[in-house]
């Protein structure tokens, strides 16, 4: 039955950049419907590259990727059609600066999905309401704070009713006080059963939201574990070492 087919499935995916750098060296991963996978690992280990292969922003040199059981990494794939089903939000707030919030939200539904403007509009307003920005529909991106822009970027991805959402460190360039409002939106999506691959450096968030943690290092998946186990008793030395960088040793003052 359909329930057994993973929503996203990577098999031995190899990504070599044109300069010869092997960013993914045989990555296999199945993500089932409504699953939330947290991807963590040191900088440069290939997390962003992994997400970008799923919607074809990076072509792969080996292995295969399937969406709902259908292999998409074959010649002749219509990437725009695939991407319409795979939402992605990036680290940099990347709203289109010349369009209002509403303009940003309507662009893809009306041009790609050919939804009527009225229908897309009412959907946009409902989603904006949900992220607490219903009153900002006519503002330009530059009038919004970073956290507000990032919430709009999430809504923009949701406008296409994606089957899976790829989030690449979406809070990494935000001021600390704005991180929470964005993560709360993502937590809400998880509760509603959105399938998500989330790359994050927010370990507490990963622990709270993920059904499964993938730990990567040097282009490979090194450890796969439920968050409760990964964050308390990681098996691989690499993961232990990585998690140690997030804790601080207590400093003892010796006033003698």
């Amino acid at each position, binding site marked *: 039955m359909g329930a057994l087919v993973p929503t996203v499935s990577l098999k031995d995916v190899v990504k070599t950049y044109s300069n010869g750098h092997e960013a993914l060296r045989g990555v296999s991963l199945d993500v089932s419907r409504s699953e939330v996978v947290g991807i963590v690992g040191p900088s440069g280990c290939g997390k962003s590259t992994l997400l970008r292969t799923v919607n074809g922003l990076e072509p792969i040199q080996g292995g295969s990727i399937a969406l709902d059981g259908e292999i998409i990494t074959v010649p002749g794939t219509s990437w725009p059609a695939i991407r319409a089903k795979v939402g992605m939000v990036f680290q940099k707030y990347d709203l289109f600066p010349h369009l209002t919030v509403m303009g940003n939200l309507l662009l893809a539904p009306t041009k790609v999905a050919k939804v009527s403007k009225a229908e897309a509009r009412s959907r946009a307003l409902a989603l904006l309401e949900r992220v607490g920005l219903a009153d900002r529909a006519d503002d330009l991106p530059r009038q919004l704070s970073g956290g507000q822009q990032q919430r709009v970027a999430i809504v923009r*991805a949701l406008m296409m009713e994606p089957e899976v959402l790829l989030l690449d460190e979406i809070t990494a360039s935000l001021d600390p006080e704005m991180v929470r409002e964005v993560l709360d939106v993502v937590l809400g999506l998880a509760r509603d059963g959105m399938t998500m691959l989330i790359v994050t450096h927010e370990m507490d968030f990963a622990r709270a939201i993920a059904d499964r943690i993938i730990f990567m290092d040097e282009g490979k998946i090194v450890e796969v574990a439920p968050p409760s186990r990964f964050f308390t008793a990681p098996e691989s030395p690499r993961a232990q070492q990585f998690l140690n960088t997030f804790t601080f040793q207590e400093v003892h003052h010796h006033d003698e």
Partner: protein
Amino acid sequence: MPPSGLDVLFQGTNFLRLLGGLWVAARIALISMALSVLLGVPVGVLMTSRNRVIKAVTRVYLEFVRIMPQLVLLFVFYFYVTMILRVNLSGETSAIIIFTVWGTAELADLVRGAITSIPAHQYETGYALGLTPLQVQMHIVLPQSIRRLIPAAVNLVTRMIKTTSLVVLIGVVEVLKVAQQIIDFNRFTYPTASIWVYAVVFALYFITCYPISLLAKGLEKKWALSSQPSH
């Protein structure tokens, strides 16, 4: 009381003649600019090409036009090229041709700059939403490029109007030439005329160029794309 140089301007049709001269200058600038836009946009798009030959040719063209003083280009064209080609071109036509050659290069470079200034993640965000490359160009790159381009292009108009003062040297009777004629004609009756006439010429240039440059500033501000949180 000696006659003031200012009176010269209200003698006969002097002031109207100055305005007529200004119109000649503005006409040269506007026709050249219109032609520069027509030619500069496609050349600018070509300049973003990855083709090495196209890149090199457009680069050499731009550098050449930038390095050569406009006056040299005007002289060479008006006195020699027309002679070699055995064509008879008026000073004004020659000026329009040279200013178009110059304006096309400058505008093309502005177009190139406007296109390449759109960050890569704007393209990627568009692709990630399912837009085709053509749709990304149409709805994301082009509108942003135009917003960046227009204020700079408007500024180029003022630079052109100012540079038209050079065409006096190839015999075009524009505002500066008219001013000189008025001064020369009244040298003995109004010895102080020159300062007043030049002051008026200065004012005319200012009145023409300042609103244009204000317009450029206004557009720049209105279309600012940067994301500065307003809180």
